């Protein structure tokens, strides 16, 4: 079934990372007959392997290699060695993700034009026409089986949603529903319907939630055109004297190094590892790292403006029962500068189990103010805020030469300062989230600070002009024709929506382009 390719086979497309971007691209190319070797740092885990226990699952799946932080964001204080919550496994972070799958709004593709100049922000328009994305979004929604699209029914609302919906309606919000979720509301695509087990973040043991790990990847392998090598950690991308990339150096599970030759290389290691790999691949020809003539590799790191609001009530909610994130208020997603900021945000239901609640409700908090909140855990409801944050050149991934990983390579440092627009939007969202719960009798509310980043974006951004970014409209690097970026690091701006549907749509689009160019002999 799976096609083992030779290390010296220089006709293959090598994809680094098998998450939302890389995993989908690998399958899409394989379906078109392109030979693909996908190298994944993590191991293979399937639904039977997932552990419905928050910390144990985290230990099983999370990317825990050395990382450092700086900047004024609270994560740098609270979780200094864990800037982001990302998965190291075949399927990448699509094992952990909650499944919220939203299209960008048209105006968000052209943030610079529609928002105008914002001081300190490095806003830019995407070099993509929103109309061109319509078909790709439809393909992505069908692939992921997104509810409330393509005739698929919505999920039923759980307890957490009931409280959220009643509060939203009391406040006059109208765009309130159980979300557009990559979670089956009925059997679909050989996967079960959601059983409301409530551990979406730990990997869905029923396979009801879409994950590349048990959909795109095995389907790609079944074509005979895709070989996925797990526990294969890429250390460096190599190039020849003409400046074209020729292959990648990786370490296998025993630490032995191999060089896999390639015709095309696609980087999809998520927005911290992808720029880090380009920077770590610096050579005498490219002393600032690969594809970095603009100096933008690693810059404009975005993580979405986030935060949470929890609230306790005089009666039980038991929010942990059922889907983790199937509930949304979209009324605030619009661009309406009269609120004091550009861009918008979504409010989405969110539940954490007791162990994670203790860690994330108020990191560093202690004493009765903290413990009385947990005493009311059973009576708690929760929501997550996700909004557009401003790209800033100084928010960036750099190499920290003082700290090395298990391969002796410099660790990535993640620097992030909130932009005043992010702060104004967060304060507005806290106020609205609190109002939602107070409208239905909350006895106490908790405006909770951001967690380690789950949405990591923008560090190899798309730009029309090679001066402004790293890749062109197809994710092809401006500097090196046979080097592509295929993950969330391509994002020019973040929009208000959870990013994965867009990452998947862009991967489908990129596969069309790469297969076409290979066919035309241009790559």
């Amino acid at each position: 079934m799976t096609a083992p390719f030779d290390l010296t086979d220089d006709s293959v497309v090598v994809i680094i990372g098998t998450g939302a971007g890389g995993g989908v691209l690998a399958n899409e190319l394989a379906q078109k007959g392109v030979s693909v070797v996908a190298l994944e740092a993590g191991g293979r885990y399937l639904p039977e392997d997932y552990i419905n226990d928050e910390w144990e699952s985290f230990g099983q799946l999370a990317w825990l290699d050395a990382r450092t932080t700086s900047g004024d964001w609270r994560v740098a204080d609270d979780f200094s060695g864990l800037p982001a919550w990302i998965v190291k496994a075949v399927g990448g972070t699509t094992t952990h993700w909650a499944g919220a799958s939203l299209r960008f709004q048209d105006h968000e593709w052209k943030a610079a034009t529609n928002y105008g100049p914002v001081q300190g922000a490095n806003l830019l328009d995407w070099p993509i026409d929103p109309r061109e994305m319509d078909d790709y979004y439809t393909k992505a929604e069908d692939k992921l089986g997104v509810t409330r699209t393509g005739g698929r029914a919505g999920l039923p609302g759980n307890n957490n949603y009931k409280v959220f919906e009643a509060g939203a309606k009391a406040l006059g919000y109208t765009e309130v529903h159980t979300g557009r979720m990559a979670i089956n509301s009925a059997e679909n695509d050989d996967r079960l319907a959601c059983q409301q087990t409530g551990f979406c973040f730990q990997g869905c043991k029923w396979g009801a939630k879409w994950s590349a790990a048990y959909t795109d990847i095995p389907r790609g392998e079944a074509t005979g055109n895709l070989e996925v090598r797990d526990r294969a950690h890429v250390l460096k991308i190599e190039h020849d004297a003409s400046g074209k990339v020729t292959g990648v150096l990786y370490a296998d599970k025993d630490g032995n190094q191999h060089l896999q030759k390639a015709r095309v290389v696609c980087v999809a290691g998520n927005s911290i590892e992808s720029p880090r790999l380009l920077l770590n691949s610096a050579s005498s020809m490219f002393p600032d790292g690969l594809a970095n003539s603009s100096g933008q590799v690693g810059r404009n790191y975005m993580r979405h403006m986030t935060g949470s609001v929890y609230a306790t009530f005089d009666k039980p909610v038991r929010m942990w029962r059922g889907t983790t994130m199937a509930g949304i208020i979209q009324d605030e997603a619009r661009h309406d500068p009269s609120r004091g900021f550009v861009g918008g945000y979504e409010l989405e239901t969110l539940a954490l189990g007791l162990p994670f609640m203790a860690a994330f409700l108020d990191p560093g908090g202690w004493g009765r103010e903290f413990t009385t909140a947990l005493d009311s855990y059973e009576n708690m409801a929760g929501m997550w805020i996700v909004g557009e944050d401003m790209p800033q050149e100084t928010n960036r991934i750099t190499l920290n030469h003082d700290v090395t990983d298990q391969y002796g390579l410099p660790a990535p440092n993640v620097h992030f300062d909130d932009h005043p627009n992010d702060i104004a939007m967060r304060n507005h969202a806290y106020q609205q989230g609190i109002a939602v719960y107070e409208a239905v009798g909350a006895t106490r509310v908790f405006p909770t600070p951001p967690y380690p980043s789950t949405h990591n974006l923008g560090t190899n951004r798309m730009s029309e002009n090679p001066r402004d970014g790293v890749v062109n409209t197809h994710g092809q690097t401006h500097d090196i024709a046979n080097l592509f970026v295929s993950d969330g690091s391509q994002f020019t701006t973040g929009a208000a929506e959870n990013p994965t549907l867009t990452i998947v749509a862009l991967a489908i689009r990129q596969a069309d382009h790469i297969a076409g160019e290979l066919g035309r002999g241009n790559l």
Partner: protein
Amino acid sequence: MSKEPQKLTRRALLAQGIAVGSAFVVGAGYVAGSSAAWAMEVAHLQPATMATLIQMARDIYPHDRVADDYYAAAVKAYDNADQAPVIEAGITALNAAAVGAGFSSYVGTGWERDRVDILRGIEDSPFFQMIRGGLVTGLYNQKAVWPQFGYEGESFSKGGYIDRGFNDINWI
């Protein structure tokens, strides 16, 4: 119950024990809860140190419905050769702070608020932060403590909540 005699023995021991907060030092190398429902052996820490540490843990994350057993379990891992000196030093400093505030010792205070004042005075110290940080998982990640908070843990083995109340609240 076969456990009964042991319990009585422990009670008897407790009667002679030195009262330290809600945990008691019971003879050499043992600390027991005032409920006498549990006891633990300490190999590297002084029993009084462990008893004070358990009280400190409760004062950091006080849950009145959670018995001492769980706090003891949460800090038991510090009873090792490597960490014992750090813990002994930290607890000595904690007691010194209590004495400075006019009490006989940390556990010699009567009201929780007095101990909390003492803890506020050291909350930026590495010792306090180590104990607090360790408790976040040490206490709340004990499966046995979850029912005290109503948390039900995994539900896969029971078929999820689809037929077991994922949308069962009716007060809203």
